[in-house]
């Protein structure tokens, strides 16, 4: 089933509703995608499938609608064919962790998993575009180096 991979969508939606202040400045239509690394083919050293010719796999999309962030399941059709501003790619450990902690403070969980390298991310808009679309608060809440990093 399309939705099973990310668990109960109503729990994700409830989390996004709880965090609604993070999204108030985001433009309608702003979209993030969430895919499993294994299912999407975005794998270490074998990512060409994910980049180019991926089979359709489940993607959890978060999209700004009616002033809030809505979660729903869609199909991921490869990086070049999927219209998202940010794509988060979770490995199996991250998927398992998120499912286990679903209903809790998921943004903190996601932030931790990004920091640990279990979730990688790709950006499809540049800094100015993301700022204009109101992403700064949200991406910073995930611990992403929004203004650049050289460590």
């Amino acid at each position, binding site marked *: 089933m399309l939705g099973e991979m990310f668990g109960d969508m109503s729990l994700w939606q409830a989390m996004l509703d709880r965090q609604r*202040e993070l999204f108030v400045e985001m433009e309608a239509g702003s979209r993030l995608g969430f895919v499993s690394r294994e299912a999407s083919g*975005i*794998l*270490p*050293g074998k*990512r*060409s499938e994910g*980049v*180019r010719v991926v089979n359709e796999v489940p993607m959890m999309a978060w999209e700004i609608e009616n002033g809030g962030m809505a979660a729903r399941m869609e199909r991921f059709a490869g*990086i*070049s064919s999927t219209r998202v501003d940010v*794509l988060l790619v979770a490995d199996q450990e991250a998927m398992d962790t998120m499912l286990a902690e679903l209903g809790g403070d998921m943004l*903190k969980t996601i*932030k*931790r998993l*990004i*920091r640990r*390298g*279990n979730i*990688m*991310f*790709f*950006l*499809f*808009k*540049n*800094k100015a575009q*993301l700022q204009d679309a109101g992403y700064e*608060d949200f991406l*910073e*809440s995930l*611990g992403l*180096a*929004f*203004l*650049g*990093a*050289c*460590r």
Partner: protein
Amino acid sequence: MTRPGEAKLNHLFQPGKIGRFEVKNRIKYGACCVSNYNGRDGTITPRELARVRVIAGTGCGLITNQGAYPDPLGEGKSYFRQVAIHDDKFLPQFEMIARYIHDAGAMAMQQILHAGRYGGIDLGYCVQPSVVPQTLPHFRPPRELTKEQIKVVVKQHADAAARAIRAGFDGTEVTSFMGYLLANFNSRFTNQRTDEYGGSVENRGRFMRELIDAIKQATPDNPLSIRLNGAELMDRWGGNTQDESFELMQQAVDCGVDMISVTVGWQEAPESSFGRDVEPGYWNFLSEKAKKMFPNVLVAFGNRLPDPAMANACVKDGVFDYWEVCRPLLADPEMIHKAAEDRMEEVRPCIGSLNCLSRLFRDLPYTCTMNPMLGHEVEPEYHVTEATEKKRIMVIGAGPAGMEAAITARRRGHAVTVFDKADRIGGALGAYAANDLARPADLQSVIDYYGVMAKKLGVEVRLNTEANAKFMRSVLHEYDVCIVAAGARTDMAVFQYLEGADLLVDALEVAHGRFKPGKRVVMLGGGMIGLTISEFLAKAGHEVTVVEKEKRIGGDIMPTFKWRHTAWVDELGIQTVTLASLVKVTKEGATVKTPKGEQFIPCDSVIVSSPRKANHDLFHEFQWMVDELHGGGDATVPRGLDQAIQEGYRLGVRI
């Protein structure tokens, strides 16, 4: 004649040879930072030339000039004002740079930098082996290079190398550091190609081998250095393993490179490679491995290795042949000379704040927290010259701003006395250094440096002396100039009518260790000071909640270090409440107001780190008591260490 430091660090100061070139010591100035001082079209400016004269004079045996992009479109251009080397029209300035370096007795090497994934800064795209989207929003969307384009890029590199040699450089360098085009081809993360340039390590290294071959053919008599990752730190995201990185080095060696410069990390790597939280010497094992694997090729290394004594031991122990150093020489261009003269205690230390790189990500010229002169070499107003009229200067405050002003003014011939109410110099910096989780020794080294220099230069320091109106009357007419650099203070007055205000504690009291908070702590203010103390307390076992009035914590923290603080907050379990203001305090806890309503936070101590207030009172007190009155650092506007040092210096060179 051998100088005392040269005898002590005899391995570092021994001569070497690169190709047919004799090198006076084993120190390579690394092209670690693009300055962003140049024209938008890649032309070299007088500001850059003045800066390069300083670099040439650092005392390094080999000097690598900053990376120049090799293509006319600017696909390889990664920084806003990076120099270009794609046309002969740029030759005259490169000739001058080569001459400066040779005049200083050093070997001159020109780096060619095609930024690949991080390039195309003026374009709407960047070029890569494959279309792998960006993970940092600063960079441009990718386009895949065709095989024909790869051939063109290789030729552009070879032409650029030949041009550099024609300009008078002795050798060239190509760089993959830190995720540039060469690294993009080498890495599994960015190379998804299915043709002969992708797939196996052998295939991924093909671009590098073609690049080396082409440059070697174009410049057969001149050494070629290549900067390659010993560790990308991208392996969790599908990048190369360390074994693959060394396999690629082997390919470069087999192609006949003269030097391998081992580097660590990519700009987008999820972990630190040379920040202040990385212990000096941490990455040496990578260089040691390279040296063992390639004993017949010169190995250069310097990632997070700021100390000449450590570098000397590494050369002695065969960890590397050349110490590649840059950032410590941004902080103090005289460091090598001071090391040679055994005056290391006089070195202005690099504290690894990475201010230099923070600014590059904002398309600004690089500067240095510790070296206020950096980038202003071309401006006579910034040079320390003998004062026309020698004055008697009093400096109120022995923090970084006051001490910087004092030693700079003293170098110009003024008589300088520093007053501070504390029993030691350093001001608030000393207190915060003691609470720093990254490396307290870094911040403490700033204070130690000022102490040494004040003593050496003859700056009188009077401690345990509070400057107030009564004190000023007692020294009336003894001084011509007063510099108020008494720092900022926590503005406790804003809470004076709040219920429980008497229970509030100033963060500075905690930082100094004069107040021991209870087990459960609420910290008002999630800026640099509040977070530094909170992290220290949390690590010591306190339960800390940070209350911040803005939407996000860490608003005043340099971006290259902000991520570290936010990670510490998570790792240490520090709770944060944002968009919140204090309503009242009781012995049981603090009540704060948030957009969701009032929230009670049980705690034993409420510490105030924000707001901070400039110390303007002294200005009003002293206005009619001294001929010249100046202010600097946090005493005028509360900010950070770099602004304090910059302002102190500017006052020192101006008076």
